[in-house]
């Protein structure tokens, strides 16, 4: 595992995924989020919070967030990211879906970590899909462990993992026709 290489490659990936019209200077947002000028960072963070985050890589403070790298990429790039991290010997921890109903988006968070010994290294890969057409390619052919996690995310949030071998009901009963973790779910 090469931390610098992973960082560089992911940065590149995130930059590739930016919409064409966007000015290049803004592209790879490398923010040393929590540093000395905390107030400044806070103010900045506040500003950023209101709009959805742009694609890019953030080197997060491990002590505050629990992750080392945090990268947001386009949904069609998750397979590339998975292949990259797989070749570096990383493990998939979990796949999480978040329903950002106000923005009309689902966020899919992939947690990767390094479990082959040595100090821990955690990478968070995020991708956002449209809430009305929640399609994202599966990574279960790269990581067998992602299979169940994706299945669960589909079941609870309705995110469609394109190419997943078995998107069937898993935790919920077979006849469940609802997605309980969606924010507009009414029991």
């Amino acid at each position: 595992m090469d931390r610098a290489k992973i960082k560089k490659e992911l940065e590149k990936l995130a930059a590739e995924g930016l919409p064409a019209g966007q000015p290049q200077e803004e592209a790879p947002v490398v923010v040393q989020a929590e540093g000395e000028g905390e107030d400044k960072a806070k103010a900045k963070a506040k500003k950023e919070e209101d709009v959805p985050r742009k694609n890019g890589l953030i080197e997060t403070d491990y002590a505050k967030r629990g992750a080392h790298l945090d990268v947001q990429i386009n949904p069609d790039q998750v397979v590339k990211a998975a292949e990259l991290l797989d070749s570096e010997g990383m493990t998939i921890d979990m796949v999480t879906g978040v329903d950002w109903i106000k923005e009309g988006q689902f966020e899919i968070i992939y947690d990767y970590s390094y479990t082959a010994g040595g100090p821990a290294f955690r990478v968070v890969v995020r991708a956002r899909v449209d809430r009305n057409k929640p399609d994202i390619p599966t990574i279960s052919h790269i990581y067998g462990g992602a299979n169940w996690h994706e299945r669960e995310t589909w079941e609870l949030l309705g995110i469609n993992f394109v190419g997943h071998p078995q998107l069937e009901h898993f935790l919920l009963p077979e006849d469940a026709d609802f997605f309980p973790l969606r924010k507009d779910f009414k029991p």
Partner: protein
Amino acid sequence: MSSLAQSQLRETFELNIGPQHPATHGVLRIKVVMDGEYIDRAEPILGYIHRMHEKMGENRTWNQFWPNMGRLDYLSAIAYNHCYAGLMERALGIVVPERAEYIRVITAELNRIQSHLLGFGAYIMDLGGFTPLMYAMDEREQILDLLESVTGSRLTYCYFRFGGVYNDIDDDFITGTRAFLKRFRPQIDLYHKLVTGNVILMDRLIGIGPLSPEICRKYGATGPVLRGSGINFDIRKNEPYSVYPELDFDIPVYHECDSMARYMVRMDEMGQSCRIIEQALNKLPEGPVMAEKVPKALKPPKGDYYYAVEAARGMFSMRTVSDGTNNSYRMRLRSPTYSNVSLFEEASRGMLLSDALAFLGSLDPVIPEMDR
């Protein structure tokens, strides 16, 4: 013989192992396609005890989510408490007094021994030996008594709080724990003599259920399963939390990659936990057990937070997405058995039925934690 003729001759049948089956320790169901005594395909089916803890996390306030932590893995609930406490302390920036951290470690390790004891006993019972379970239960009862005297409950602990622990330990607990350790160490030798050295058991475990480090990595297996495959990875060492860096202990690793290796990792971990407890008791500082500045209304800043601990069955981690209100926007729980059991389908192909169940037992699944 052509392959077509072969496939016609081959007659398979489906067998449902569980949800009510003695070897699954709960309501796990495995749909097995059998070819005689051999397994063609085994598909675990989950969800029989699914309670949607993640949704509860969204509906309850941060404090109200506490009791849920005791109900995921009911055998090592204190580690789960530890994870939630650590997560929120990370999010809120609370500094925990040192005494509280030591108490957390002591109780968590006692809980780990207790969990491994039950895992050991139940595993041997899966293999047909009833007696070791009862011996393990005897020791486990001592631990439960000790933990009951501090936490007030015997199984579903809800003992930790943001910024410390619910109440302090007393001298009775300390002397009781020391006495227990003194009594427990010879018992481990007894287990080894009675069980580990037994030729029948060795025959059943050695070489059964091989798991390469690669398959462990692909499926995100952690804990004794990973360490039984020769990888030295333990959150307590590799991503130290609490006061573990100040304590001296080893991580047992076995390179055989079979069920016996996983079993031995658990047995050795009990001894290491004893070492940790002993040191922690010696080092136990005086002082408060709750941080002074814990806000009444908990509102962690926006953003998401991640925290991982080493539970008895592997890495338990939580990711929470906070939107700055007094409950979580999204709570994600990563349970170790979920990942560990997900490799069962691939690894069990072509095994004998009895070997497959020995292999499943060596993964030590706890069903409520998988189903969440």
